[in-house]
């Protein structure tokens, strides 16, 4: 049995807490508090970490961690990414500049992304078609990265599972060689 630790990150409101809650078999550990930032309409926001657990069909266990989205919590990003085998960056296409959001996390995790398998999940794409998935791929290419970019609705368990499965395929490829 293998134990995987994977980390969800991405801007505030992209659905990291929701994604972990959608697939976790145990009640997720949530550290959300009242949001006082007038620039964000969300009532609550994660300031510590999210945590959930998932057992795969193979019996392997996945431990899911989520970071706070805001850059002022970047000290936690570095703590939470330790020993992670993969990273899922969730983006919210309804935000003013989703590609700029993506850059924040590509830069925040730049050192890790040289080695760490990663998948990008783009939410709220149906109502906000621009930028498209190819624009995300172009942005990644500007950072010398080639990563899967998926259209997801993190409220749906199947979509979150798809993100995790895609990441695990990447992790296995990097662990055992392609």
């Amino acid at each position: 049995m293998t134990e995987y630790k994977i980390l969800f990150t991405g801007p505030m409101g992209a659905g990291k807490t929701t994604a972990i809650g959608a697939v976790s078999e145990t009640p997720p550990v949530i550290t959300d508090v009242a949001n006082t930032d007038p620039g964000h309409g969300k009532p609550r926001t994660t300031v510590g970490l999210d945590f959930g657990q998932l057992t795969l069909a193979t019996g392997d266990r996945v431990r899911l961690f989520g970071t706070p989205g805001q850059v002022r919590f970047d000290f936690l990003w570095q703590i939470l990414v330790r020993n992670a085998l993969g990273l899922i960056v969730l983006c919210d296409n309804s935000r003013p500049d989703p590609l700029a959001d993506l850059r924040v996390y590509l830069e925040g995790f730049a050192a890790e992304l040289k080695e760490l398998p990663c998948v990008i999940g783009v939410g709220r794409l149906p109502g906000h078609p621009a930028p498209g998935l190819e624009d995300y791929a172009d942005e990644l290419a500007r950072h010398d990265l080639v990563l899967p970019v998926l259209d997801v609705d993190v409220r749906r368990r199947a979509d979150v599972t798809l993100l995790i499965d895609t990441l695990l395929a990447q992790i296995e490829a990097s662990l055992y060689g392609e």
Partner: protein
Amino acid sequence: MESERVEKSVLSPAVKVLAEREAARLLEEVSGLTAVVVATVDGFDIASAMREGDASRVAAMASSISAISGVVSQEAHLGRGKSVTIDTEAGFAIVHAVYRPDIDLVINLIADGNAILGQVAYQATQFAKTLAAA
């Protein structure tokens, strides 16, 4: 996903002024204290008095510590979290929760080796009571 209901309270300026004044007084009067930062639970500093450091970083860290300690106390059925002490080689930090009807706050006191833990802990509790009642 939960409804995007916006119902934000705004901390009254009087509370901010009180927090600023008390933070400055504590830094001045309590031996060994090097920083006093009052923050919202989501990590924004609203008042601070510091000999060194960056209040906004301290505020974000205090809110994380407070939230994580909150889930620990919840998990163990110990009620709401009150305070966390981080004891270090060269001093200590105390993070104390402030429960107010409008906006919950977090106080962070950082002290060097000249400070007395019991004294600073007492001051943190008193400060929290003052801010809760203000």
